[in-house]
């Protein structure tokens, strides 16, 4: 038994091989150790890309450890390769000296040529710098299932459980949770249950008996703060955050949405959770998704619309109206690779400028971003809070990486989160010329500039709102030049006022403000790699500071001051430098963009290299 402090495993195989499932189950048992962990699923855009091809490879990476970790790891230590294509695609990222667990049965001539191999890599010298284990996974799986009554074709499909069993043995994961899960999940399908169970056990036992491996490994439990934990993907956490916000505001949740990868899972999750009074509406398109949400908002629902890149373009006109009417709603953008259809299943942060600027006319809208899978819960609540408090649409940014990956999460005590007060107005707030009480929809709170909001159904508060410019206060249509200017300024001032209410940006600089040689600014999912990178350079004795932005519009009130302490500012983004441009404009600081647009999150090493680069060139 060898002790390791951390391991990165990548399960890779054909889309039909069940790698996501194997990865997910491994994640669950790992969370029970408990190890700290982070995951990175990666799958092709096609539903079923042609079997055996490079395009059809699906993978799941998990990084787990006995200490606090942030990223799913740069390079896997172990690669499970269920077929030649999987090896082909992932070999180059394997750490030097890494382990390859290859399903040797799949390395037949046909599969090799489909993957583009002219000879079998398991046989030549090509892999000599790795530790290669050739395991007949298909054959062993078939044998294990032999007298279970399953057809061989079906039995073969259980080989992911064989692999899972084997890896579970290698890293001394408990077997009971997996066995329990298989039993429950396939309760109604005896043959499949039996095949999966037998294969899983066969894989585990193979490790134990085959004497192929020098030893088992152990990764000691990480020290977690005490509490109850779960493992959650970003999309699930975000959906739950919306439900929690609905409870906190006592406003029913309405989701108007049109399916799009990688946002659809939020719709799926919320559609299931009707016991929370959630109403989900699959609209005919993104415009109607946003429009229906805005209609529901007018009616007093906590209104949300979810989408990804292309949908953001389509919703722009409606969000402009929402900003103009000053009605709360949340627009969730799970960013993916653009422009246009791009690469739908890969991650990017390239919608930031579109959500900040992408509406005609002057229509400022707040923007909040989730920084990790579990943080999506908190970010969702915060987006809803700002929306309701300030009567404004709010963009909530996540991305494909956050959406699909998972991490351990201390369950929050929702009853202790501050409630959201919609503060509906039920009595007239104005007296008209004839002395009659009436309701003026654009009378504002002097501090937040939020307008007083009354709901249909309230007698005596009847009123009309609309997209034409309106008179301050009364809300009547107005073409008055100075009134228009005032309204433009008020809407801007309202969004800027949010800066007063949100927390100042935190500065992580062990030497105090300005102590470090360089400041890294992260936002959204770059948080984890940037934090990890900063830690690494600090470990090398260098001085790097970090500030993470959860609020992209408006910026926290102290951001200018924080940036002002540093001569060198680096802004790593999975785009061509969108936040960086915004910081330069707002604060006239010479922030430099570290850009990566490959559909993948930053690796810690990339951040480390970028920091070393500026420090070295000093």
């Amino acid at each position, binding site marked *: 038994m060898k002790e390791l402090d951390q391991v990165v495993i990548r399960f890779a195989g054909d889309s039909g091989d069940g790698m996501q499932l194997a990865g997910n189950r491994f994640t669950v048992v790992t969370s029970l150790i408990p190890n700290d962990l982070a995951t990175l699923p990666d799958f092709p855009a096609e539903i079923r890309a042609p079997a055996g091809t490079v395009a059809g490879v699906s993978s799941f990476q998990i990084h787990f450890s006995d200490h606090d970790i942030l990223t799913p790891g740069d390079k896997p230590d172990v690669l499970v390769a269920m077929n030649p294509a999987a090896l082909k695609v992932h070999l180059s990222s394997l750490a030097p000296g890494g382990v390859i667990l290859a399903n040797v049965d799949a390395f037949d001539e046909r599969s090799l040529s489909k993957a583009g191999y002219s000879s079998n890599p398991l046989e030549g010298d090509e892999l000599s710098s790795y530790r290669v284990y050739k395991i007949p996974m298909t054959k062993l799986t078939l044998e294990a299932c032999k007298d279970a009554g399953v057809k061989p074709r079906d039995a073969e499909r259980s080989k992911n459980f064989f692999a899972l069993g084997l890896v579970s043995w290698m890293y001394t994961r408990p077997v009971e949770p997996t066995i329990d899960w298989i039993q429950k999940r396939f309760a109604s399908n005896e043959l499949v249950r039996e095949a999966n169970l037998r294969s899983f056990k066969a894989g585990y036992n193979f490790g134990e008996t085959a004497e192929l491996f020098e030893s088992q490994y152990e990764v000691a439990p990480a020290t977690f703060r005490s509490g109850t934990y779960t493992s959650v993907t970003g999309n699930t956490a975000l959906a739950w955050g919306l439900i929690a916000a609905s409870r906190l505001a006592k406003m029913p949740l309405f989701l108007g949405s049109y399916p799009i990868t990688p946002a659809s899972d939020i719709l799926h999750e919320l559609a299931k959770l009707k016991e929370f009074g959630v109403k989900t509406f699959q609209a005919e398109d993104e415009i109607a998704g946003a429009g229906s949400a805005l209609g529901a908002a*007018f009616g007093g629902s906590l209104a949300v619309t979810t989408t990804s890149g292309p949908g953001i373009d389509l919703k722009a006109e409606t969000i402009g109206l929402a900003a103009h009417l000053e009605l709360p709603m949340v627009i969730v953008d799970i960013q993916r690779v653009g422009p246009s259809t791009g690469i739908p299943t890969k991650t990017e942060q390239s919608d930031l400028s579109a959500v900040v600027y992408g509406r005609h006319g002057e229509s400022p809208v707040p923007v909040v971003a989730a920084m990790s899978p579990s943080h999506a819960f908190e970010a969702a609540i915060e987006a809803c809070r700002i929306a309701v408090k300030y009567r404004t649409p709010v963009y909530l940014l996540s991305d494909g990486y956050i959406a699909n990956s998972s991490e351990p999460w201390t369950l929050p005590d929702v009853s202790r989160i501050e409630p959201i007060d919609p503060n509906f107005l039920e009595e007239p707030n104005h007296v008209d010329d004839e002395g009659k009480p009436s309701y003026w929809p654009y009378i504002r709170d002097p501090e937040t500039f939020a307008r007083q909001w009354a709901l249909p159904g309230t007698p005596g508060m009847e009123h009309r709102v609309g997209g034409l410019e309106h008179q301050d206060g009364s809300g009547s249509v107005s073409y008055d030049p100075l009134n228009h200017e005032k309204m433009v300024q008020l809407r801007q001032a309202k969004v800027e006022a949010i800066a007063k209410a949100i927390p100042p940006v935190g500065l992580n600089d062990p030497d105090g403000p300005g102590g470090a040689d360089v400041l890294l600014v992260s936002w959204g999912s770059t948080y984890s790699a940037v934090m990890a990178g900063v830690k690494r350079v600090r470990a090398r004795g260098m001085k790097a500071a970090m500030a993470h932005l959860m609020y992209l519009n408006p910026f926290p009130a102290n951001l200018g001051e924080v940036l002002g302490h540093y001569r060198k500012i680096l802004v790593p983004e999975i785009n061509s430098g969108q936040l960086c441009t915004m910081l330069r404009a707002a604060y006239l600081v010479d922030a430099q963009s570290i850009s990566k647009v490959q559909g993948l999150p930053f690796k810690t090493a990339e951040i480390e290299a970028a920091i070393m680069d500026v420090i070295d060139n000093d």
Partner: protein
Amino acid sequence: MTDVATTNGKATSRKDWASDQEVRWCPGCGDFTILAAMQTMLADIGARRESTVFVSGIGCSSRFPYYMNTYGIHSIHGRAPALASGLAIARPDLDIWVITGDGDALSIGGNHFIHAMRRNINMNIVLFNNQIYGLTKGQYSPTSEVGSVTKSTPYGSIDTPFNPVSLALGAEATYVARTHDMDRNHMMEVLKRAHEHKGTSFVEIYQNCNVYNDGVFSDITGKDRRADYLIPLVHGQAIRYGQNGEYGVARGDDGHLHLVRVEEVGEDALLIHDESLENPSQAFELSRLARGPHEPTPIGIFRSVERPEYGYEVARQVAEVEGKKGIGDIAALLQSSGTWTVN
């Protein structure tokens, strides 16, 4: 007096339904009579102002909500049914009216329109069809006839227009009616029935734009020729028209509907109008009798059938799940995919 009109507990009259905003349509515009019909009808049936919402898109017609002393949203060109859908699902307690134009509903808003029809969400869509874009000063619309000379078609338009009734029926509409701006009583009746209908009701109103398209409907709506051009559809009655009822609609030997002379076919051969047919085919066939407003044209309720209302169904599913699983518990939700505890 039977049905006492009440809002906030008080009886209302037409003027209670008028907002304090000056009505800004061109003098002589057909929109005025529609406004009057709507206000009167709502007062008559005892609707409640506080539970009534008018949602519109953009266009001359779409200014309508500003003039109603109810809740209202003047929204985005073409998108009123989308907003109304969300509002109706979220708030099944409200009476929701969508006011739209031929451009708003059928050009930019065509998709939301057809989806509203099939979903049968609780809203009454009232389309002011003037066969022109009024607000943008006179371009042709998807209902303009072929050959229309307008600002954007100086050599005549070449697009076959939609027949809004056929389109709605093809999109699975449950309530479809047509009326016109020169007959306030008929408008009121058809609007009232729309209001009573559960689900999406669709009312096309032939509306005169006296500035950009004056008189397009005058054969049907004008007093002089009306008798020969307006075919009244009355449920349960033979379909008959003409100065002296000398014409009618009957199914011919070829199995198809035709305009006939009553004396030729005999009264008994006339088609008895049935708005409640489950199959929309006959209503569709009626909608094809006229190829444009210069031919005898059916006016009235083409179809009125029941189908589950969308917002109700949404609420039912929620209630059923709540009933079965109990009201959701957040703490339990957060634990639902398994937990571990560290002390």
